[in-house]
């Protein structure tokens, strides 16, 4: 049997009505807000201005791109947050009973006892073979 994604038909349609109602309210508010035409950015590289704003070089941002603030502190904060998130993800994903092993887990996160069963079966065959060898050796003697 293939496991292609299928359209979920067992969903709760009341939630859909709630989401649609929220969309209707939001759309009504947006359409009746009476917004002016957008001012736009004019000439000049927007990407360069974004880079200047991100590193507190707001003097280099041209006048058409508005009074952009400096974002250096936010940039550094986000860098720390990303680092912490990486550490947190690794801490959560590491198995507790593995003892800091660095081998790649290729079993898809299966429960450990099933993996152990496979290992025992393979090692069991190996001991049987060695046992047979010792038995034949004893027979020769």
């Amino acid at each position, binding site marked *: 049997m293939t496991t292609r994604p299928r359209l*979920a038909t067992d*969903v709760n349609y009341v939630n859909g009505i709630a*989401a649609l109602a*929220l969309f209707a309210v*939001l759309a009504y508010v*947006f359409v009746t807000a009476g917004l002016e035409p957008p001012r736009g950015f004019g000439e000049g590289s927007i990407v360069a201005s*974004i880079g200047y704003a991100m590193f507190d070089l707001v003097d280099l941002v041209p006048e058409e791109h*508005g009074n952009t603030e400096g974002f250096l502190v936010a940039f550094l904060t986000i860098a720390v947050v990303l680092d912490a*998130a990486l550490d947190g993800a690794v801490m959560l994903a590491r198995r507790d009973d593995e003892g800091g092993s660095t081998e790649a887990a290729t079993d898809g996160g299966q429960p450990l006892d099933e993996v152990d069963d496979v290992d025992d079966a393979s090692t069991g065959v190996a001991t049987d073979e060695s046992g047979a060898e010792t038995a034949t050796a004893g027979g020769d003697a």
Partner: protein
Amino acid sequence: MAIVTEYYLLLSAAVFCIGLYGILTRESALMFLMSVELMLNAANINFVAFAFYWGNLTGQVFSLFTMALAAAEVAVGIGIILVLYRNFDGIDVTEAATMRW
């Protein structure tokens, strides 16, 4: 001729409501993560649209930070989903109803 801001806002509201519907309906934790991502990106559309509306780049820069925050959130979320799968043999969020098990 620039696109009027209302269309951006309507798109943003539609994306937000799709994400909200996903959160209200789905039981898979991965679908939850995707729905939260949709809602965050709806906010990003608003940031960029209003940056263009006011002719000020602050909204665009802030939307970049929102994307970085979403990446951090997904990293932690997938770690939590891994733990969920190990402890419950599945990623159904309705099964993990207690703080301890």
